[in-house]
């Protein structure tokens, strides 16, 4: 197929380089320098999509980020699929494959369009909710078909082969947008010596100057662009980032810049020297000052059937002709409210095609461009507008009539002009999105008929972004903004010579948004406001009639401004229409808030390298490799990988967790087991006031703990609720080693620092984490002493090395600290050695342990064994609402300590004194085969009408091989006074379990076994 709309010359494309591509399976040709959109227009492709709700045929409207229709699915292979690509922003490359995201079975012949035609009147805002609401269970079914026919693109089903990088950057001045304002600002800031980043979202920098009719220093505008870019590139302190979109403007001038490095080359990144190149970079920039030079978006006019392919923005027509050498039709009618849009007609004539007429809403258009159009003999219809487009798959005529914008009525009879293209312009809206991200509510400016940004300290807007449009003034504005920004961060402004630009005499624009029709809005042909979401002027009018007065509510009810274009094209028109319907001025109705991201960002760019293995750091103990080699299953505890259990192969079959845990439990209770406990938090505490400090942060007493002794402690918040526990050993008079739960290590250290630094700085005490320095292995079981004796000459006698003692010595030839503490209820030694020696010690223990039946066990067995003894796990059996007394741990509370320790005062609050608080108890299911569900709710009376009063819940529950029964820990209201009573646990499946409240200590209640 030939490029029937391609001009013989002109534009910035390279006609010597032909590129072939496919769209919806059809092969076409374009040129290097084309976008997918310009290439489609060159080939005369009118319909690029079907609309979201009515399935109406849609064509290309714009030439940039604001394009609502030409949203395509890209990608040759499954893994390379990219949804929601704006064809106007996608550079053409050889072999590009794209398809429409909407349209079923295809865009040319769409089944759903029937609904659009016949049912159009019956699809008001909220149609889907209103129609498919009942029965609720059917929504999933409806949704599947609605989605299929609506379509929003789809995600790839295969792994992304591409790499994405994150870069952290700092700069003095960040300039966003490289049109005339941005280039001038970067030049001014760069010359001052400031570190500058200039980012621009397009394939080429230059913005509006790339298709400008104006001359700078009597040269074409793009010559100045080239000169300036050369000057900027020569400055070491300036970084140019083309193809880079500023997507989010966050607090304190933190801006995310998404740089697409390879998307103009292929659908997956090329491989160079055997390495796949990064597809994109997310620059996380912390800027000293920011200049927003983001320009302005043209507003289309809202008239009947303004969505038929062939309706374009006036500025887009100029861009396609001047930048891409494509004229998107043969006969043009232009409808405008301002002078600037006349460029489209002038460019059209120069392209050798016919301008049928210009309908100008103003009574006496008289600017310079108007005169040029007159001189060319173009028919100008003052006081008029296109009120309706004719045609189905392409415009074939425009109905033009005199209008009275103030009275919102058609003032004369309409004339039908045959044409295939209608360009419209209702003026310009500054691109205020990034300024909105910082929280500033934009303000309406009547002079420019648009919202201008409200700026936080340290950011300025230049040129079109604040409603300054004349090229000469835009350049001056940019230089001023760039120089000021640099000065504010300490750089002296340097001289910047601005090019001479002839000042153009423009006539005043008139405010026009929705064009009146002969019929009232609700019965007129559809007048589209938001093309991507099929929101019409009638829809907005209906919404206001139904009582939606806030613009934010109108937005959500009609879906205006949703989707990939985020209201770039239609929002201001929508607000103006809402204002008209509500009889209020636009500034009073206000605008909706724009949020990041400015344009869609692929997830890969957001996560960068933080995915798969690098998603989250993993922490391994010194014995990790041994665990892997011995078949451990792992459990994540915080960032740690802890062995969960060690399944064995028995007769070629791998044990289940249940079997492995039962075997591991028996080994500990009957012989000896070994646990890698290295992950427990360890905090080294030193200083003359260390002991006093411990007494204040623990609930129990520390004044008399002698060197060589160990004590268990509970830690509360000042509200009296337990938040961590562990043992602390006295290493010397002024030296202690505190252990914490695995997950609580960092929190506890911060907690200690908090109290020391903010409340008791007079105490001389120092804290340091030594969790990674020491590895810990616990050997526990009746044979533990015999095993340890084989690898140490330490005195292990039960009288001289007592329970809750620790000793320094040599184990397996390595200096060690050995703690006689027990979390299993059995005789136990916790051996701490420097982490680098730990694997050796661990393996030495196994070399000697076989004859004793030494068995490695994991966290699951540890949980069963400790629960059998009623030992709590802070964070599992407690939840921030449990006091030491609720746990029945009065023995661990120093009520008469001299200093009012953290949590003490709260224990005498009326609420903590209640006798019906939830208290920790044991539960024994009546049916020993039942293992209660952790988290199951407990009731006293299962016959009670629903909702039953819930009196507690199960916190820990396991099967005990020792008891050959299920058992549980639970919190029950007033439970400590209810020993022997029954409680009930109604389950989701209708079963009700009965259990008896018992002591939480199920095994060896006298604690004799740990003392053998």
């Amino acid at each position, binding site marked *: 197929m030939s490029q029937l709309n391609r001009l013989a010359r002109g534009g910035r494309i390279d006609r010597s380089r032909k590129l072939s591509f496919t769209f919806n399976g059809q092969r076409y040709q374009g040129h290097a320098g084309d976008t997918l959109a310009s290439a489609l227009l060159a080939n005369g492709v009118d319909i690029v999509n079907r609309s979201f709700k009515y399935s109406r045929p849609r064509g290309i409207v714009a030439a940039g980020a604001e394009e609502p229709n030409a949203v395509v699915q890209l990608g040759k292979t499954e893994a390379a699929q990219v949804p929601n690509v704006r064809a106007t922003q996608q550079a053409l490359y050889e072999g590009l494959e794209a398809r429409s995201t909407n349209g079923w079975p295809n865009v040319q012949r769409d089944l759903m369009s029937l609904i659009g035609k016949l049912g159009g009147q019956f699809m008001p805002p909220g149609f889907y909710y209103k129609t498919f609401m009942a029965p609720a269970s059917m929504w999933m079914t409806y949704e599947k078909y609605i989605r299929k026919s609506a379509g929003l693109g789809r995600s790839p089903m295969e792994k992304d082969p591409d790499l994405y990088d994150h870069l952290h950057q700092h700069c003095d001045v960040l300039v966003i947008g490289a049109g005339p304002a941005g280039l001038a600002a970067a030049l001014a800031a760069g010359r001052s010596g400031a570190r500058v980043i200039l980012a621009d979202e397009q394939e080429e920098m230059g913005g509006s100057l790339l298709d400008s009719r104006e001359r700078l220093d009597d040269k074409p505008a793009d010559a100045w662009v080239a000169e300036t870019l050369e000057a900027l590139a020569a400055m070491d302190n300036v970084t140019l980032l083309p193809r880079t979109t500023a997507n989010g403007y966050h607090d304190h001038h933190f801006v995310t810049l998404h740089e697409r490095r390879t998307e103009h080359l292929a659908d997956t990144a090329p491989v160079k020297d055997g390495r796949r190149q990064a597809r994109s970079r997310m620059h996380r920039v912390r800027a000293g000052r920011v200049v927003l030079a983001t320009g302005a978006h043209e507003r289309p006019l809202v008239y009947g059937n303004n969505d038929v392919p062939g309706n374009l923005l006036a500025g887009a027509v100029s861009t396609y002709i001047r930048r891409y050498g494509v004229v998107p039709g043969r006969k043009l009618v232009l409808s405008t409210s301002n002078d600037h849009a006349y460029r489209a007609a002038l460019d059209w004539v120069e392209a050798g095609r016919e301008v049928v007429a210009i309908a100008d809403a103003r009574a006496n258009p008289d600017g310079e461009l108007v005169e040029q159009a007159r001189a060319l003999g173009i028919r100008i219809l003052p006081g008029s507008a296109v009120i309706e487009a004719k045609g189905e798959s392409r415009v074939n005529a425009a109905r033009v009539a005199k209008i009275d914008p103030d009275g919102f009525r058609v003032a004369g009879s309409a004339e039908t002009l045959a044409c295939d293209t209608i360009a419209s312009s209702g003026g310009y809206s500054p691109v205020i999105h990034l300024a909105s991200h910082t929280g500033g509510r934009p303000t309406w400016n009547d002079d420019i008929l648009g919202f201008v940004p409200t700026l936080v300290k340290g950011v300025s807007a230049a040129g079109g972004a604040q409603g300054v449009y004349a090229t000469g003034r835009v350049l001056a504005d940019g230089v001023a903004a760039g120089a000021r920004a640099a000065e504010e961060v300490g750089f002296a402004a340097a001289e910047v010579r601005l090019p001479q630009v002839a000042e153009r005499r423009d006539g005043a624009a008139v405010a026009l948004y929705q064009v009146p029709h002969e019929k009232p809005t609700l019965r007129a042909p559809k007048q589209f406001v938001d093309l991507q979401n099929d929101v019409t002027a009638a829809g907005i009018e209906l919404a206001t009639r139904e009582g939606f007065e806030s613009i934010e509510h109108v937005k959500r009810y009609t879906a205006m401004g949703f989707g990939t274009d985020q209201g770039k094209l239609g929002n201001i028109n929508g607000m103006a229409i809402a204002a008209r319907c509500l009889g209020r001025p636009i500034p009073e109705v206000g605008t909706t808030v724009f949020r990041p991201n400015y344009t869609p960002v692929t997830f890969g760019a957001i996560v960068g390298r933080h995915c798969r293995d690098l998603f989250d750091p993993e922490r391994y103990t010194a014995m990790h490799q041994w665990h892997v080699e011995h078949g451990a299953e792992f459990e994540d505890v915080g960032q740690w990988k802890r062995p969960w259990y060690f399944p064995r192969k028995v007769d070629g079959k791998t044990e289940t967790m249940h079997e492995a845990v039962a075997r591991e439990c028996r080994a500990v209770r009957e012989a000896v087991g070994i646990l890698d406990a290295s992950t427990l938090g360890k905090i080294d505490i030193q200083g003359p006031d260390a002991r006093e400090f411990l007494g204040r942060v623990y609930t129990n007493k520390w004044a008399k703990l002698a060197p060589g002794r160990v004590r268990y402690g509970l830690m509360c918040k*000042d509200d009296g609720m337990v938040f961590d526990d562990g043992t602390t050993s006295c290493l010397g008079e002024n030296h202690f080693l505190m252990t914490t739960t695995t997950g609580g290590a960092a929190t506890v250290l911060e907690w200690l*620092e908090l109290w020391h630094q903010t409340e008791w700085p007079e105490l001389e005490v120092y804290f340091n984490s030594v969790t990674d320095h020491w590895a810990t292995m616990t050997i526990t079981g009746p044979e533990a002493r015999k095993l340890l004796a084989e690898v140490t000459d330490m005195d292990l006698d039960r009288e001289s090395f007592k329970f809750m003692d620790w000793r320094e010595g040599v184990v397996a030839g390595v200096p060690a600290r050995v703690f006689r503490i027990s979390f299993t209820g059995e005789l136990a030694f916790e051996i701490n050695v420097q982490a680098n020696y730990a694997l050796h010690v661990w393996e030495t223990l196994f070399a000697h342990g076989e004859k004793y039946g030494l068995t490695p066990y994991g966290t699951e067995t540890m949980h069963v064994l400790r629960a059998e003894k009623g030992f709590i796990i802070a964070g599992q059996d407690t939840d921030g609402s449990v006091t030491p007394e609720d746990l029945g741990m009065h023995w661990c509370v120093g009520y008469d300590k001299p200093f009012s320790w953290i949590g003490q005062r709260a224990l005498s609050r009326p609420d903590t004194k209640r006798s019906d608080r939830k208290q920790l108890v044991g539960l024994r299911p009546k049916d020993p085969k039942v293992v209660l569900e952790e988290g199951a709710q407990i009731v006293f009376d299962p016959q009670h009408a629903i909702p039953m009063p819930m009196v507690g819940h199960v916190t820990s529950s396991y099967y005990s091989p020792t008891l050959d029964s299920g058992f549980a820990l639970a919190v029950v209201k007033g439970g400590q006074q209810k020993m022997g009573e029954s409680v009930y646990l109604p389950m989701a499946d209708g079963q009700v379990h009965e259990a008896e409240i018992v002591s939480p200590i199920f095994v060896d209640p006298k604690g004799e076994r740990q003392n053998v």
Partner: protein
Amino acid sequence: MLYIHCPYCGELREEEEFHPKGQAHIARPLDPDACSDEEWGDYLFFRDNPRGIHHELWVHAVGCRKFFNVTRHTVTYEILETYRMGEQPTITAEHPEGRPSRDAADQASLREGVRA
């Protein structure tokens, strides 16, 4: 993401390095047992939630581990000053432009680390 000046490190660092710890200048009563339940409840549970200038406690968690104070505007998120433990803010709701100080040198040292 906030950009926070640690008054101990003397550097502006990313928010990722810090943890917020709630309202600053909440002193624990020196004699908790002398507090009525209501007074103790106020200390434990009640905090200001101003629209505007707020003094907060932060910790440079993965930096120097020091706690310090931040004067932050809760609407603009602007950080008006950061200052060490034991120091008082110069910028308050009553003196949003900075409190008059008797000693200019003292004022200058207090305002170290202020980014406005």
